[in-house]
């Protein structure tokens, strides 16, 4: 049976990447909680997971010719807007308590994915040493 190290970490590698980017986005929402006209954004996990499974990136144009320009490297998941629970007069759609809850949840999920990766690594290490 061939052993591929690329597959050893499974979906957790993608999950960590997604969570890290979501952390960044939620931090931006929190920092802009008092900015007039700022629209809070978020990723859809189910959609991102599906895209990761299919190895596809959102809104990416197909490159049918070698001379087509490649998209920017930092191109990430699709960013979605949400309807604010308490709309404010200045057009800001950040619900700070919801963003804080999401941030904590996301941080915990990131740590969980790291824990899974750690277990995978220690499993591999045991296999290599033959313990």
């Amino acid at each position, binding site marked *: 049976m061939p052993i591929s190290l690329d597959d050893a970490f499974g979906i957790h590698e993608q999950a960590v990447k997604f969570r890290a980017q979501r952390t960044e986005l939620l*931090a*931006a929402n*929190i920092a802009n*909680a*008092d*900015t007039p006209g700022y629209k809070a954004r978020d990723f859809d996990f189910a959609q991102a997971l599906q895209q990761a499974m299919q190895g596809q990136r959102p809104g990416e144009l197909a490159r049918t010719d070698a001379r087509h320009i490649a998209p920017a490297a930092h191109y990430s998941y699709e*960013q979605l807007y949400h309807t604010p629970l308490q709309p404010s007069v200045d057009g800001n759609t950040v619900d700070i308590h919801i963003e804080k809850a999401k941030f904590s949840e996301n941080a915990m999920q990131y*740590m969980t994915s790291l824990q899974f*990766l750690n277990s995978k690594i220690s499993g591999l290490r045991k296999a290599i040493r033959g313990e």
Partner: protein
Amino acid sequence: MSLFNVFKVAGSGMNAQTVRLNTTASNIANADTVSSSVNETYRARHPVFATLLSEEMGDAAHGVQVVNIVKDQAPLRQEYRPGHPQADANGYVYLPNVSIAEEMANMISASRSYETNAEVVSTAKQMLMRTLQLGQ
């Protein structure tokens, strides 16, 4: 790497809130500064926040910046105090248009937002530390 951007974003947030807290402190300190003419009187100052769009931070991370500090154009208070050393020819002194209640609310809001951003930084730090310890 995206987790490092969290520090920049939250840092810009803390910076903006500090400016806001500074203007509030200035407004409260000058709430009772009288003067003898309209032009010389202190006017309440308010920062204007805007989203910081920068290339280096990439697609997702947008910090916040203070683009301007505006003076409040609300009318000044005018009081008749003929005995006051700063009174003008008609016996009037002019007081700043600072609303203490408004400033206090602003102060609480700014310090709460600052705290939240500081928490974001500490959480991001924990996440990075755990990532560095991966596989040990």
